[in-house]
């Protein structure tokens, strides 16, 4: 009798995907259309007139496992596979233009006919003449905008320090620059030196320890009274 027993409908593909739990981890979740499978499952069950709660439970569990995997992949920012590419169209090789000499219709008269008009716009914007012809200019070192905005940077870093530690407390430099790029860390260090010079903070380092410690010692208001270079 058991040999002649018909396999339940949900063990046939494609519904079997939901009932082979051991294979769930191996399939590509993007290839499974859960809504389609579940609808098919319910319709089939309705048609057969037999409600099997155990099978429904398994289908539900498998579906949620597949959903979970899709969610995990999305959180990993893994893109779903691209849609299948269409067959590329035939692109013929470039046809190179035959080289021919061609006398141009432009004459010196044509060239000078348009000059009058151009000289009119020159009179609207008079040329800055006489411009001496100078030798190739010397190279001017580029001025770092960062240094030009040093006051602003000092202010914002000081405010940041106040938020991190109270007056008198210690803050490790490595903690302050954690996660920053090297160049940003260097810039922060430079600003710390400026702040230290203004007496806003204290910097100290113990022998044999590489860590640099910062203490906020100035008043909490960055009053700007001592903004002149020290």
């Amino acid at each position, binding site marked *: 009798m058991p040999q002649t027993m018909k396999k339940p409908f949900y063990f046939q593909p494609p519904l079997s995907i939901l009932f082979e739990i051991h294979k769930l981890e191996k399939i590509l979740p993007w290839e499974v259309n859960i809504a389609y499978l579940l609808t098919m499952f319910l319709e089939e069950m309705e048609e057969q007139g037999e409600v099997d709660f155990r099978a429904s439970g398994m289908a539900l569990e498998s579906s949620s496992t597949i959903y979970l995997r899709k969610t995990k992949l999305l959180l990993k920012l893994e893109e779903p596979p691209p849609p299948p590419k269409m067959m590329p169209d035939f*692109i*013929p*090789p*470039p*046809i*190179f*233009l*035959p*080289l021919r*000499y061609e006398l141009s219709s432009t004459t010196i008269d044509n060239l000078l006919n348009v000059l009058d008009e151009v000289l009119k716009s020159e009179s609207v914007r008079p040329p800055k003449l006489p411009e001496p012809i100078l030798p190739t200019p010397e190279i001017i070192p580029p001025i770092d905008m960062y240094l030009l905005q040093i006051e602003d940077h000092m202010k914002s870093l000081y405010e940041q320090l106040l938020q991190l530690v109270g007056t008198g407390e210690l803050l490790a430099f490595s903690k302050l620059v954690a996660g920053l790029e090297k160049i940003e860390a260097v810039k922060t260090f430079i600003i710390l030196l400026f702040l230290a010079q203004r007496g806003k903070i204290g910097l100290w380092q113990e022998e044999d320890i590489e860590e640099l410690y910062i203490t906020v010692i100035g008043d909490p208001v960055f009053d700007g009274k001592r903004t002149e270079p020290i």
Partner: protein
Amino acid sequence: MTENEQNQSEPQKNEKIAHQLALVEAGLYVAGRPLDLRTIAGVAGSRSKKKVRKLAKTLVENYKNRDTAIEILELEGERFVMQLKADYTGKVRKLATRPLLSAGPLKTLSYIAFRQPILQTQVIDVRGNHSYGHLKQLEDMELISREGVGKKRFIKTTPFFADFFGLSHDLRTMKRQLKTIFKDVEKPKTEETMNPEKAE
């Protein structure tokens, strides 16, 4: 034969023909594009189509016999053109004064020529976004024309394009000619014929 020509001696006739040949040569040299018999007749100062055809064909032969870098070819529709033989293109391309097209725009052009009339969106699909620039350049050079707007913008090659390549103005014939050209280009995969730019 006109009365005037009957009265001419043999050397006089020969001299006249040599002069007319030189005029046709001058015309073809200066034009840099295919000229039809009517235009050539105007240059040669002759009204006989038969004579003008003979003059042009003589020039084609003369240039063949000279065996040098320049050729005069007869194209479809009894049109004649002077141009550099393809063998020399790669080596002197860089000397050409006119802004020439690089391989990218030329590929776009050849695709358009092959598929025309074609939707602009299809050209962009196949050739990529950078081909917007190619289309502008090809339009500036009057090699293609665009009609319609937005998603319904159609592109085809211009009569100037057909003339430039010595192709038929009839679209179907042109496409057949192009197929032959592409086959020829694809066969000899030597460095020079495939990459004339590189050969410079």
